[in-house]
């Protein structure tokens, strides 16, 4: 079975480290970026099955990243996470066709189930 790959985008080092260790432990390939611009650089250079991104970040936030990805990488599913959930950002996320919207703090095992199911759905 092919190893799955995930790109985690979050400006908080703690979250990046936590998710890095967790997904490595599950046997995934993982790349991390601290904002949307860095994430796009990574997407240009390697294959990614799913992007998990925070919404509120400096430089390029998660919604701007998702909008850009819908143009350049329409087949890569995006899951957004936020510590500042709002109806407006959820509606914008829906319009950007993200596959899920997760509020922080999240249970990492529940998050993993969501991510795993979305990657499997993509594989058909």
């Amino acid at each position, binding site marked *: 079975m092919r190893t799955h790959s995930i790109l985690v985008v979050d400006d908080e080092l703690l979250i990046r480290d936590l998710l890095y260790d967790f997904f490595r432990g599950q046997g995934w390939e993982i790349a991390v970026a601290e904002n949307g611009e860095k994430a796009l650089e990574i997407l240009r250079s390697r294959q990614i099955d799913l992007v998990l991104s925070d919404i509120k970040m400096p430089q390029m936030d998660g919604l701007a990243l998702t909008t850009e990805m819908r143009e350049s990488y329409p087949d890569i599913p995006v899951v957004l996470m936020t510590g500042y959930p709002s*109806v407006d950002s*959820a509606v914008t996320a829906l319009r950007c066709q993200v596959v899920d919207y997760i509020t922080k703090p999240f249970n990492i095992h529940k998050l993993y189930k969501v991510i795993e199911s979305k990657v499997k759905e993509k594989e058909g």
Partner: protein
Amino acid sequence: MADREPEVRRKLADFFVMIGYQVDAVANGQDVLSKAAAHDYAVALVDCRLSGDSGLEVLAELSASCPETSVIMLSAEPSLEIVIAALRKGAFDFAVKPFDLTELTEIVHKAADQHELLKMYRAMSAQMRQDRDAGNQRGAASQRPRDNCRVGTL
């Protein structure tokens, strides 16, 4: 279009008929699903609170039974949970009442375009599958005589 308020149904139906759409307007989820089973709707506008039904349940059923129909959810006071549930159940968009009709029209046009694209994509995929199957059958048929060929000796 499904909304439990007759006035909203009438106004929206009149508006979309005026700009060139064919519209069926109903008040409850059962009517949405029975009409959707009989027609190929490009777009469904579904209020989150219908008479006797949850609009989100109707959305889930429509996503499963009519995946090419773009569903736009409507609500006067959406909660975060409702918007997230709509996102997870595959809504195309979410419009908050009272509507800006210009904005709603743009959303409906985009939704109709999406429906056309999906139909085109599925038709092309089906055609490609058919061509591939036909190619496989031709390949098998062209091999058959050789498989059945007997080499005789004089």
